């Protein structure tokens, strides 16, 4: 199968407007004859569901949480980028495009990224019109701050709760459409399969998580807005319920999975405190605006800190190594996430880590507090400082925070073309669930931008083209494909429920997480990956023999939900290993030890690897087939990234 990304011809800046003109339209009277399913109600899902309903389509929206407002976009802290250039500091659509392509280490599509930068400005307008309370200056206009990987201030924010405010904005738009009767909302529902008829997506099978009923829903198109798969590592900044099941089921029905090994390890998270740890908490990247990252200059000093003989505040300036400022003088503490994470790991590996575990570095606000005053720092970051205090019992106003990288975001996802359509016609992927815009590393404050761009401003145009092509004829829910898919789902659930072994599903999940973090985390090697593949295959066969899954299907059953998700994570884990093995270059968040510069920086190999890997499922326990979409760069010059 030849992958056609359907990037429009013509100059970069004109591609999207030309494309919009060329897309077919559905006439307003016909729109009400179509039904669209939206799975997931984070920024991408809520905005898509609301915008499509406003156009006149009938929408069925699904989420596993008890309310669409709880999707994990809500936890995004720092902000959202937009090329508004309100600061007069040299920003533009071109610059946001360039920063994003460069930040992604030249592994994303020019056309997609340019469009993202272009519509970024509309997002801010839309959110303000909905009543999203962004931070403002005394003159009443919007405030901005800086984020990693950029030298302009283009990040709009709402204290440390930007994701919450944007999601509640999208949720309010969704609520309005539910009120109008244009969106039917299914909370506490989990999608367990896609139904395809003649190769086209025409519905889903979902489980009502309260009653266990297996429901069949038909539609003219299905949009997966189901987020990322960071929980494959067990510990991540994702919510406990975040999972890959919807995307993975779609993958098994023919949707290619792209660049699964591109995962983002976020540099500033609260370090692990013990084996009981269930998740990790992010401290927003915005903190790197005012916080300075450092470790003790020598191993001896670090050891004294770890043993509790001295405190961080006891160290004099010349006993500290502000390693990011030292190594990257032009970007300093605001280098992109992958660079900051790798450097923190390097310091810890050298024995300079702090905290009782030794697996942490400092993020220090003493300078900012003496420069701006404690009140000003509190006004900017108060909620983050409180959260840190709550979790660690340490006061970050008085002593530096301890931070360490943690899995945060996944750039990989379902392969989509320029229209956000997967390799299954009628099946779309939006937001973090797709692979398209962030290459091998996502810049801070760009996830919110992409989720809302896809939902508010891309899919309302591109979906219409497909719907106009297939026509408004009602979907036949009696087609055998629906009953067959439902049966397959039920059989799988019964198979899970028959597992009465001796190991809990959480134990398998933790084990999977350890394998992934060790061998497919911040640095990866051929030897380690090969070992990990074997370990995961063994884990999989053991799971299907010895896991414990309790209860029955016809009830609210946490045990069953978790088992299904972990079983899918195990399979995804193996594909991530395959992808990481195939990509024998270092780029962005993917660091292969075999491919580095003399200074230990990531070394790309554009000759061999300037492509998007797109994996095709070929059958149970069979190796997946790799397809390659070559990346063409006509507007930017590929160069080794430098933040020095």
């Amino acid at each position, binding site marked *: 199968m030849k992958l056609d990304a359907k990037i429009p011809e013509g100059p970069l800046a004109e591609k999207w407007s030309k494309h919009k003109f060329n897309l077919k339209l559905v006439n307003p009277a016909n729109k009400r004859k179509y039904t669209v399913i939206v799975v997931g109600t984070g920024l991408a899902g809520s905005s898509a569901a609301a915008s499509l309903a406003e156009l006149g389509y009938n929408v069925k929206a699904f989420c596993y949480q008890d309310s669409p407002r709880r999707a994990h976009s*809500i936890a995004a802290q720092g902000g959202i980028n937009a090329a508004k250039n309100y600061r007069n500091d040299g920003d533009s659509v071109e610059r946001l495009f360039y920063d994003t392509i460069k930040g992604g280490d030249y592994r994303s599509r020019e056309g997609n990224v340019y469009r993202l930068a272009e519509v970024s400005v509309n997002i801010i307008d839309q959110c303000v019109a909905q009543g999203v309370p962004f931070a403002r*200056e005394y003159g009443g206009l919007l405030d901005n701050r800086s984020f990693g990987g950029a030298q302009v201030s283009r990040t709009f924010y709402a204290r440390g709760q930007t994701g919450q405010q944007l999601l509640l904005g999208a949720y309010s738009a969704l609520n309005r459409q539910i009120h109008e009767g244009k969106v039917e909302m299914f909370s506490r529902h989990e999608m367990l399969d896609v139904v395809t008829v003649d190769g086209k997506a025409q519905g889903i099978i979902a489980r009502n998580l309260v009653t266990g009923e297996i429901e069949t829903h038909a539609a003219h198109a299905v949009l997966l807005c189901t987020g990322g798969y960071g929980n494959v590592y067990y510990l991540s900044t994702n919510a406990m319920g975040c999972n890959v099941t919807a995307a993975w089921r779609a993958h098994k029905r023919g949707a290619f999975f792209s660049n699964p090994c591109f995962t983002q390890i976020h540099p500033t998270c609260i370090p692990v405190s013990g084996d009981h740890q269930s998740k990790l908490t992010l401290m927003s990247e915005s903190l790197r605006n005012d916080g300075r990252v450092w470790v003790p200059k020598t191993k001896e000093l670090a050891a004294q800190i770890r043993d509790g003989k001295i405190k961080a505040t006891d160290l004099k300036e010349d006993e500290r190594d502000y390693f990011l400022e030292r190594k990257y003088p032009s970007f300093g503490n605001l280098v992109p996430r992958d660079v900051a994470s790798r450097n923190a790991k390097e310091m810890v590996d050298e024995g300079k880590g702090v905290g009782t575990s030794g697996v942490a570095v400092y993020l220090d606000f003493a300078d900012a507090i003496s420069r701006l005053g404690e009140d000003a720092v509190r006004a900017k970051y108060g909620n983050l400082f409180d959260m840190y205090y709550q979790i660690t019992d340490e006061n970050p106003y008085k002593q530096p925070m301890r931070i360490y990288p943690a899995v945060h975001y996944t750039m990989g996802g379902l392969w989509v073309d320029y229209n956000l359509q997967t390799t299954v016609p009628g099946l779309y992927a939006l937001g973090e669930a797709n692979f398209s815009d962030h290459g091998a590393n996502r810049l801070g404050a760009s996830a919110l931008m992409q989720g809302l761009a896809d939902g508010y401003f891309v899919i309302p145009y591109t979906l219409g083209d497909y719907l106009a092509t297939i026509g408004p004829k009602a979907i036949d829910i009696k087609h055998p494909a629906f009953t067959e898919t439902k049966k397959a789902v039920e059989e799988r659930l019964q198979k899970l429920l028959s597992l009465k072994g001796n190991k809990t599903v959480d134990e398998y999940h933790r084990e999977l997480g350890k394998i992934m973090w060790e061998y497919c985390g911040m640095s990866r090697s051929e030897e380690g990956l090969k070992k990990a593949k074997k370990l995961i295959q063994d884990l999989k066969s053991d799971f299907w023999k010895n896991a414990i899954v309790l209860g029955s299907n016809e009830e609210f059953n946490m045990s069953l939900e978790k088992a299904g998700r972990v079983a899918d994570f195990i399979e995804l884990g193996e594909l991530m290993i395959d992808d990481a093995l195939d990509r024998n270059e270092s780029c962005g968040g993917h660091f292969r030890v075999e491919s580095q510069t003399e200074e230990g920086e990531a070394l790309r190999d554009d000759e061999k690897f300037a492509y998007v890997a797109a994996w095709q499922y070929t059958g149970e326990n069979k190796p997946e087939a790799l397809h390659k979409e070559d990346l063409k760069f006509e507007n930017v010059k590929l160069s080794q990234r430098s933040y020095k």
Partner: protein
Amino acid sequence: MNLTLKVWRQPNGNTKGTFVTYPAPGISPDMSFLEMLDVVNEGLVKKGEDPIHFDHDCREGICGMCSLHINGRPHGPKQAITTCQLHMRSFHDGETIVIEPWRASAFPVIKDLAVDRSAFDRIQHAGGFVSVNTGGVPDANAIAIPKPVADEAFNSATCIGCGACVAACKNASAMLFVSAKVSQLALLPQGQPERYQRAQAMVNQMDTEGFGSCTNTGACEAECPKEIKITNIARMNRDYFTANFFKDEA
């Protein structure tokens, strides 16, 4: 730490529930409250017993999914945090901890500690929005909003919809939750065109859902993990009365 838990167990909404006592030995003070429950649950699963069902998701104090009435207080003994941010260092060794679901007839129990809060969603459906479609809106900086007003709207907008206010109220009133959204939009210029009808529609829906009346005890404000102020209720009442008595002006 070694603790004893008295947990409300109820298989579903149609069956009567009861307290069941579980030992929770070997708990680290650094665990969060939910991690402590994870440990207990893992022990139950190993024994083939149904784990304690409770709602939770982000575990960062922002999604509003976690609930739990702990020793008689929504989200436990500490001020201004959700249950997921509560750590075991707030308890002492040997303590008995009583864990119940939110108690309110508008929040029926689904199973054990999980309740149905969809009434909150339906109140938002009734009017918790500004009626603007995607596209065709003015430039963001075309609307100047004084910083103190924007900050106050933001404070109201930080409500996470967890339902602690209802659980804390002797009348199971939802006034704090409803007034937070009404206030956010009443403070902002974008919310003005629908200001009064919004207050009216949301209050009417709240009454339909069976939440109780407000008698100004202030328990909601005291227990709110996001410290939403009771002054929001005064603001909502003002708009609600305007909507009812001065229809032509509203």
